[in-house]
């Protein structure tokens, strides 16, 4: 079950457990967790840490009125939502992305970025981070680029390699602004990644450097 070899740092997993992580980053952690049992176990323990810390708080007195009101409401509370969703989403799509994907990845409004790459922006986070999916064709490559801020990537389908190694499904990667890298998808199949970028991407090739002021989209 443990397919991935690249995991989020523990302090990031702890921030996820604490609920103090920006939602865009939490999305990446959640996508990774679907493929990673060992991080899932670690998360359980981190949740225990949170619960023990909560138990150490000095209890704050709750009014009798609140208790009476809630007890009086119990029978009229709306039933809990049913477990299953009515819509059938492709099992390849992680649950945390169901909010953006109607049925499967093909439904999305992919935009051509280059001969090798298509992308679709899913949303923005409150901190300005851009959440998108990238699709690299088999053997395709993304131009060498660096970023202004951190870039979080989770591989959802296929695999790619860059200067630092080979990455497969479920792998969780963070590249910071000092990393230059050129991801290349493996030949056997296309690669789909969830990518969260905190700032605009900077291209480092000569031509791209000239184009940089005009390109805000990234991954040309």
């Amino acid at each position: 079950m443990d397919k991935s070899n690249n995991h989020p740092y523990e302090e990031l997993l702890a921030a996820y457990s604490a609920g103090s992580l920006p939602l865009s980053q939490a999305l990446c952690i959640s996508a990774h967790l679907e493929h990673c049992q060992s991080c899932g176990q670690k998360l359980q323990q981190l949740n225990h840490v949170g619960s023990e810390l909560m138990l150490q708080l000095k209890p704050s007195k709750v009014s009798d009125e609140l208790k009476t009101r809630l007890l009086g409401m119990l029978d009229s509370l709306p039933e809990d939502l049913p477990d299953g969703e009515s819509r059938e989403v492709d099992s390849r799509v992680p649950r945390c992305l169901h909010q953006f994907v109607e049925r499967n990845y093909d439904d999305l409004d992919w935009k051509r970025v280059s001969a090798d790459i298509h992308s679709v922006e899913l949303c923005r986070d409150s901190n300005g981070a851009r959440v998108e999916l990238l699709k690299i064709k088999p053997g395709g490559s993304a131009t060498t680029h660096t970023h202004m801020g951190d870039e979080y990537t989770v591989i959802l389908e296929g695999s790619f390699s860059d200067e630092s190694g080979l990455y497969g499904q479920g792998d969780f990667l963070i590249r910071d602004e000092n990393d230059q890298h050129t991801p290349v998808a493996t030949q056997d199949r296309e690669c789909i990644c969830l990518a969260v970028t905190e700032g605009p991407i900077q291209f480092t090739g000569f031509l791209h450097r000239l184009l940089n002021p005009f390109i805000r989209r990234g991954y040309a």
Partner: protein
Amino acid sequence: MPLMANTTAKSDKLAHLSACIVRVAENRDKAAFAELFDHYAPLIRAYSLAREPGADLVADDLVQEVLARVWLKAAKYNARLANLNTWIFTLARNCRIDYLRRNSRYATEIDPTDIFNEIEDEGPGPFQMVQQSRVQQNIRVGLEQLPKEQSEILTKVYLEGKSHQQTSEELKLPLGTVKSRVRLALKKLEVLVPR
């Protein structure tokens, strides 16, 4: 109270509360629910106030929201997957994230519902369960022994809901120091096992 006696009292209390949640789930027992309310409501209220000191109305709302979920979801609680305290913590955390987002502290389209799955439908397999209670015991005892500089940071992150960046600004510490203190603390709590 000596540490051991204290620990025994805590686990007796937890066993009693766990019996209450079963009565709520199976018999819709309001008296059992009232006991859960009496124990958890003041803690949930304190949890809310830790993030927003002085925001009493917000704290009352969170209490009501979390305990309503306890009532509605009681049947889904699975003691094999997490102890009751931890289940309630994750409910409170999820409600707090939801609340902050709805009240536009987070101006984002991202819906947290599917990101923070509730413990009901995932968790370790049965063979890890044996270790669970020992792990929790280690965490409880470990927290009491952490150096202040480490526990202070866990409090910021978990209870006050601060990001590492905010924690670093508030404590006037480099970001790297904040992260490494979190790691050190988790190591002491034996949460981190070598992969």
